[in-house]
């Protein structure tokens, strides 16, 4: 049996092989069918699921940032534009948490990125979507772009992007009016989230999906929504590294609206220049009395807002923040100064209107004022006094303190508080700048609330010359002078004149609101205005030197505010006093007297007397503005030309 098996049986062998080959083939076919069925399941039964996954793999919806609106002055001079720059941007998702620090270190070695820029970037990405790209360094030079391009392969998730970035061609001159922009930070996001939660309206958050910067100050902040525009969308195909291969669909963003301002850039520039030449810290505000439009809003010293736009460097930032001159401080809208004698016309008008004095009321001025039963002498600026027969008009022209000490006591704080509010003191002017301060127009209740003390009559005496607790912003002062220019109508101040709509063809204007002050008998206002006009004229006007030889007529009032209180037995010695205790120089006024076109306030810190320092600047600006805009009174021009004709005839 064993032997028989051991012999080779070819026939059996072949038949076994044949059977096995058939079995093998059957198994092969069966397994191929298994494979085919597997593909059938993937490609037919689950097709839609896989199709979706494949689309999700490759297609990304990307927000597209809108172009920010431009800002022009009243004559169409561009004050804020968008420039294309190269920005170095990082997409946190692609870099990955683990590699981020290392990537940043290598990048900063390659492209000179300082610690503040690094920490600002880290702060920025902490709370925002990690699928977006964020700038770490903007405004790359061509060399830097080239250096990065060569090393690009070493930096996954880091790209150089062409972006539009805010640029202020006249940055230093206009920053305090226009404001500035910088990166959206944690607080901004939290604020938007908070708002969205309250209103249940998340469209604003979505609208900023592609935006990295926003207005932080001034108009840029106030009109952020209008300037920003509406985000667009792009459907893009990306490869596995997130690089965009092509754009499939695009819904264009809507550009922000352009702003046209009342601001006159030429005047603005001149005002900056004059303050700088005078070497003074201070502010100038010029207003169009006819409509409340702000013609100039200047604060010196100033700074370049362009430094902030692309992320400010550590060195620049500490230089600005540590400067004793405080360039970041907007004196025009945030500076609250004692208005000093500049508010004498206002008080005088109130006295007349309330009937506590009339035009013939006279007082004697020995050089000081004192309250009954009190030895304290409130000194006049003129140590020997203005004489025995000071009436209200004379007291404005010569700025007699004693008259107003007396007047304020006659009026009492309650009436002053109410009356001065009509000129806008103690409240915001309505200017389209968020940072505006309202100053202090004190009252009994104010003092109780803030000092926890009763109001003394002595407090009222100080109020009479615009000192004591009374503080006002240059903005308020300018607007209060516009009230006289405008015969008692007070406008809310406004920087923006016009919005140019998205279509770039039509425009709309913001509503300007105005209020008529309680004038009673109208002639009292004229009396005061006349007194203000005479203040700029010889023989006695406090601003007569400043307005000497002007070819237009103006009205105004000087002010000189004590910064340091002078003891009873001391005298103010301008020569020997420390700079920071020098008087603040102030001036308010308008011109031309007959047909007012510009109302102005000048405040100069520690510059000395208002007549000698502030009034000349106001005069030059009035002249500059009237001349530039061809607003000089025709009568004078004609008389001059007729005089010339006369001369030639002779």
């Amino acid at each position, binding site marked *: 049996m064993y032997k028989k*098996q*051991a*012999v*080779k*049986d070819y026939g*059996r*062998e*072949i038949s*076994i*092989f*044949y059977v*096995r*080959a058939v079995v*093998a*083939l059957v198994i*092969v*076919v069966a*397994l*191929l069918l*298994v*494979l*085919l069925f*597997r*593909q*059938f399941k*993937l*490609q*037919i039964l*689950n*097709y839609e*699921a*896989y*199709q979706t*996954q*494949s*689309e999700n*793999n*490759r297609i990304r919806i990307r927000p597209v940032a809108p172009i920010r609106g431009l800002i022009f002055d009243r004559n169409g001079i561009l004050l804020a534009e968008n420039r294309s720059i190269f920005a170095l941007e990082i997409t946190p998702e692609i870099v990955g948490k683990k590699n981020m620090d290392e990537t940043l270190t290598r990048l900063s070695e390659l492209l000179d990125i300082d610690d503040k820029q690094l920490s600002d970037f880290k702060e920025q990405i902490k709370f925002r979507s990690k699928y977006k790209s964020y700038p770490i360094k903007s405004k790359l030079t061509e060399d830097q772009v080239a250096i990065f391009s060569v090393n690009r392969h070493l930096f996954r998730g880091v790209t150089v992007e062409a972006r539009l970035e805010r640029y202020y061609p006249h940055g230093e001159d206009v920053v305090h009016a226009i404001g500035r922009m910088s990166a959206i930070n944690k607080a901004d996001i939290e604020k938007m989230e908070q708002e969205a939660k309250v209103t249940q309206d998340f469209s604003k958050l979505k609208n900023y999906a592609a935006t990295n910067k926003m207005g932080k100050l001034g108009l840029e902040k106030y009109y952020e929504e209008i300037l920003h525009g509406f985000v667009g969308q792009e459907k893009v*195909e*990306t*490869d*596995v*590294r997130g690089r965009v*291969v092509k754009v499939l669909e695009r819904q264009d963003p809507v550009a922000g609206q352009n702003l046209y301002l009342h601001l006159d850039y030429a005047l603005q520039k001149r005002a900056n220049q004059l303050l700088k030449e005078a070497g003074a810290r201070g502010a100038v505000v010029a207003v169009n009395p006819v409509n409340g439009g702000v013609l100039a809003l200047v604060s010196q010293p100033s700074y370049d807002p362009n430094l902030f736009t692309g992320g400010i460097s550590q060195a620049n930032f500490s230089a600005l923040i540590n400067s004793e001159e405080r360039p970041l401080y907007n004196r025009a809208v945030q500076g609250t100064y004692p208005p000093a004698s500049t508010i004498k016309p206002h008080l005088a008008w109130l006295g007349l209107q309330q009937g506590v004095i009339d035009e013939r009321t006279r007082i004697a001025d020995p050089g000081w004022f004192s309250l009954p039963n009190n030895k304290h002498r409130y000194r006049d600026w003129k140590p020997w006094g203005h004489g025995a027969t000071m009436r209200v008009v004379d007291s404005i022209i010569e700025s007699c303190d004693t008259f107003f000490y007396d007047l304020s006591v006659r009026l009492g704080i309650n009436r002053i508080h109410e009356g001065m509010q009509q000129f806008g003191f103690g409240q915001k002017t309505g200017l389209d700048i968020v940072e505006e301060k309202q100053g202090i127009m004190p009252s009994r209740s104010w003092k109780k609330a803030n000092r926890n003390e009763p109001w003394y009559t002595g407090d009222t005496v100080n109020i009479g010359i615009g000192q004591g607790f009374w503080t006002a912003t240059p903005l308020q002062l300018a607007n209060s002078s516009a009230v006289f220019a405008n015969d008692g109508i007070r406008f809310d101040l406004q920087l923006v004149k016009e919005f140019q709509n998205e279509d770039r063809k039509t425009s709309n204007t913001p509503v300007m609101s105005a209020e008529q002050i309680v004038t009673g008998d109208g002639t009292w206002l004229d009396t005061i205005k006349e007194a203000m006009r005479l203040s700029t004229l010889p023989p006695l006007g406090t601003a007569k030197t400043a307005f000497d030889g002007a070819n237009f007529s103006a009205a105004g009032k000087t002010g000189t505010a004590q910064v340091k209180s002078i003891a009873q037995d001391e005298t103010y010695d301008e020569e020997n006093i420390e700079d920071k205790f020098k008087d603040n120089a102030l001036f308010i006024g308008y011109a031309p007297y007959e047909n007012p076109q510009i109302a102005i306030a000048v405040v100069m810190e520690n510059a000395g007397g208002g007549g000698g320092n502030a009034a000349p600047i106001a005069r030059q600006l009035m002249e500059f503005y009237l001349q530039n805009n061809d607003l000089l009174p025709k009568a004078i021009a004609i008389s001059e030309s007729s005089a010339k004709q006369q001369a030639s005839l002779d």
Partner: protein
Amino acid sequence: MLKSFNQNAVSNTHKAKSSILWRLHLDAPLLLGLILLMMFGLLVIYSAGGESIDLIKRQVVRLGFGMAVMLVIAQIPPRILKMWAPVLYVGAIGFLLAVLLFGESSKGAQRWINVGIRFQPSEMMKIAMPMMVAWYFAEKALPPSFKHLIVGLTLVMVPTIMIMMQPDLGTSLLIASSGFFIIFFAGIRWRYLLSAAFAGLVMVPIMWFFVMHEYQKGRVLTFLNPERDPLGAGYHIIQSQIAIGSGGVSGKGWLKGTQSQLEFLPERHTDFIFAVLGEEFGLIGVAVLLALYLFIIVRGLQISLQAQDTFSRLLGAAITLTFFVYLFVNIGMVSGLLPVVGLPLPLVSYGGTSMVTLLAGFGILMSIKTHRRLHSR
């Protein structure tokens, strides 16, 4: 009489159509199937490789080299092949030993030795092993006795274990299966087969705990649940299934597969090329590919059936079925039926060594087919 029969067979089957091919010892249908497959492969490689002409050139050079090897081997009559089988086998064992002792590492596995050129002895074993086992059973009475079976199994297991130790699980399983195919076709009794299958089941836990490496276990676990590691090991499987599934019936079109063109699919021109094909040509493309494979397999079995000696018959059938295992494992892995094993899609994937080995195998089939008339028992 025999001679004239052979001549008749020759004239009936081939002479009229392809006398040149016959003289070159090539089998026309098999050659046609192989060429169609390669062309299909080139088409997909062009798309998967980012339309790189360079890649195509290199692949064409490789294919040309493989075809040359096939042509050369086709000229060698089976009896000469049989004569050399033991030498080849012992040589391959020697090389494998050398690899284990002082081979070069690449990707954590020792698979290469350098003898003037760098090559993988395991590739050589893919041919040598079935030849050796076929050689062994050729002279034995079949179906084999238990004793012969044990010897045959030993011939299979020794190189298999050596390759497993490199470690290269995919190749060792492939080589083992080619040896088992010989034993299967030699006529191993069904009850032995069943008990072996049972033993295999018992072996599974033993393999898991004592033989398999961590990375291999990981692959199996990931295969069972790709979401376990969606960005790591599971990524390949997930992305390739997305690619295939999103192809649908007719595919996204040549060069238009987003999964592959946008590089979501890894190893798309090598091991995962089937996913590119599925994505761009859809179910229709897949069916065509499987049909081509089936055609080649049927032809291979047919040639083996017609073989005139035991050695050729066993060897031919084993080569054909090993080819099937290749494609089945690859497609099964890429479409998520089997765990990830590093095997290319035969004759389609971009890559060198294994293709040359495969074409050498087909050279043997060609030889078997075309040397019949010279054969004498």
